């Protein structure tokens, strides 16, 4: 799905936990996430911390959209 959307020239960030799969299937901008059942959350954290975590991931993801890349890139912390 990621690749097909990218083909339209729209930058897309794949926010996924198993980033090895993302890069195998050809996603270009990859943001590693927390775990399969909660990619953008962490129920083990208190609410406020969980929210901050999510916010920072989404900000990083959005910034990845504004970053020119030549090859597959993981946007880690």
């Amino acid at each position, binding site marked *: *799905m*990621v*690749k*097909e*959307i*990218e*083909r*339209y*020239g*729209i*930058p*897309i*960030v*794949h*926010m*996924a*936990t198993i980033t090895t799969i*993302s890069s*195998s*299937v*050809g996603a*270009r*901008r990859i943001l590693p*996430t927390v775990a*399969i*059942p*909660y*990619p*953008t*959350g*962490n*129920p083990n954290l208190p609410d406020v911390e969980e*929210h901050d975590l*999510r*916010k920072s*991931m*989404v*900000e990083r*993801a*959005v*910034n990845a*959209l*504004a*970053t*020119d*890349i*030549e*090859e*597959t890139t993981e946007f880690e912390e």
Partner: protein
Amino acid sequence: MAKKVIYYLNQFFGGIGGEDMADFEPEYRAGEMVGPAMGINAASGDDCEGIGTIICGDNFFGTHEEEARAFIAKVIEEEQPDILVAGPAFNAGRYGFACAGACSVAHEAGIIPVSGMYEENPGLEHCQAFSWVAATANAAAQMRKAIPLMANLVKKLAAGEEVTPEEDSYFAQGRRETVLVEDRGSKRAVDMLLARLNDEEFVTELPMPSFDEVDPAPAIQDLSHATIALVTSGGIVPNGNPDRLQSASAQQWNKYDISSYDELKGDFYTVHGGFDPVYCNEDADRVLPLDALREMEKEGKIGKVYDLMYTTTGTGTAVANSIKFGEEIGKELKEAGVDGVLLTST
């Protein structure tokens, strides 16, 4: 009743002439089996009956493809054959392309397309998926070997018999059929490992797939005016799953208006069957982070969260389906002027 077979040949094999006759306009010779058609017809047994030969110049097919296809389609409609046999084209590129075209017309007409080509013939990829293309040598000198291969395919397919790429020497169409076999899987695995340990031959049952590549799309220049869309394969749907998205092996995608929501918590949940849903159902932003993106919108860090979110279920979903979903969703996003996408996967 014998199955009716119609043949397709180029100007050369049709006996019209060489390169100088490559612009030859298509013609149909009813009741006449020309050149290789005669050989294949003779070798394909009594249950197959050749009813005629279409001959068309290769250049004509290349330059007037629509016209040539229409001609073939008309002959098929009038003569009602069960099988169309094109070629063999060996490694002749233009002929291979024309044979692929003839096969594709036959396929669209719902009849069986058979051909013969060399593995590097560029026409092969245009018809391999829906035709039975016998693997021939690269030059016409090997016609004697090609004829029985094609005749065998014609004979068996006409009789509705099973053919396999290994037994019947055709290029696999790429359909992976689930079958029940003699030995259970564990035994086959042990045998395969033993073969490897003893340096004996073995055949893998699942050759590794290869994935194509796409160039990275250019970056967004001005985030503060950018519209960002949310897409997920995490099976996020409004409570009640109004469009009945499947829990696995999705056959559909859905879109929902999220313009009036600041977060997904409470109003959305997951139907995805591939992971523990409890955490997501407490707060769906854990899978699709609308809350955080909405805040960025309010803070002016991005222009806008796109009004619609797109969702499907990723688990066990055929790659062909996910490609289709991506194409359809991407088209909508492009038309809506979306500047960037966050796609979450579970």
